[in-house]
């Protein structure tokens, strides 16, 4: 009977800690993508500044209100501007930021293709 009780307690505490971890990891993902505006190069997750602590509390509140990550980011962007998020949204101002890596990839492919073709041509001749 005693063993059964112990197993039940362990079983229960395991699920409680699992639930707490899931909630925490959800919030911590958001903290990592938020910039601490008063720190040098630190995210909200990295900082214990007054501002970071307040934003963590606000994010926790929004999570408990069942807000989605996008809704939380949108809320904070509306209050602090796009600067607060590390991953900016796609718009005309950062069009190059999002498309340039793909353009470079394609351009690189063309360059490699031309170099190979040139080497092949030289070998044949």
């Amino acid at each position, binding site marked *: 009977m005693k063993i059964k009780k112990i197993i039940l307690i362990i079983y229960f505490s395991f699920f409680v800690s699992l639930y707490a971890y899931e909630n925490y990891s959800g919030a911590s993902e958001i903290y990592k993508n938020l910039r601490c*505006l*008063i720190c040098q190069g630190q995210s909200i997750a990295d900082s214990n500044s007054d501002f970071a602590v307040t934003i963590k*509390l*606000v994010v926790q509140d929004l999570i408990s209100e069942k807000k989605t990550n996008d809704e939380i980011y949108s809320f904070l962007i509306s*209050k*602090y*501007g796009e600067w607060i998020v590390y991953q900016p949204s796609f718009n005309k101002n950062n069009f190059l930021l999002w498309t340039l890596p793909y353009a470079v990839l394609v351009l690189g492919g063309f*360059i490699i293709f031309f170099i190979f073709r040139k080497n092949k041509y030289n070998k044949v001749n």
Partner: protein
Amino acid sequence: MKVSILKIIIFSFVIFCLFVFWQGLKKNNNYDTKNLIGARISNFQFTEINNENKSISEKDLKNNKFTLINFFASWCAPCRTEHKYLLNLSNKKIKIIGINFKDKKKNANNFLNELGNPYHFVGKDSDGKASVLFGVYGIPETILINNNLNIIKKIIGPIDQNQYNEILDLIK
């Protein structure tokens, strides 16, 4: 001929990258609130610092042509330097709301007793969460809003003579 085209492409690309980096270096990466001018504030409520039954919300501010919301704390040294400007503004045609930020009631009252109270209402934000609705990230901060609750001006740091004059111009 093909090789020369390739070289031109690579050279152009390198020049382009250098240009982008150069432009990037010129850009100011400090946080500023230019984009927040014109934004509307909503869904807020502050309880009076000395009276839990008294509060202020957005509907109370809609009656004022302009409202200046000042976030202050007794522990904040720059708040002392800007206080004289707030006292001067309290004599003008503008309502000033003070929000006591992460402070103790006793210290806040001592601060106002010592320096004077320029506020028509003193609210409290003990944990700083409500101030996030106003985009506050440090103390002192001051926000000038119109009766549509749109932000007209946001001052980060203490109010100085130039900002005081700007506020006077805006509320004319």
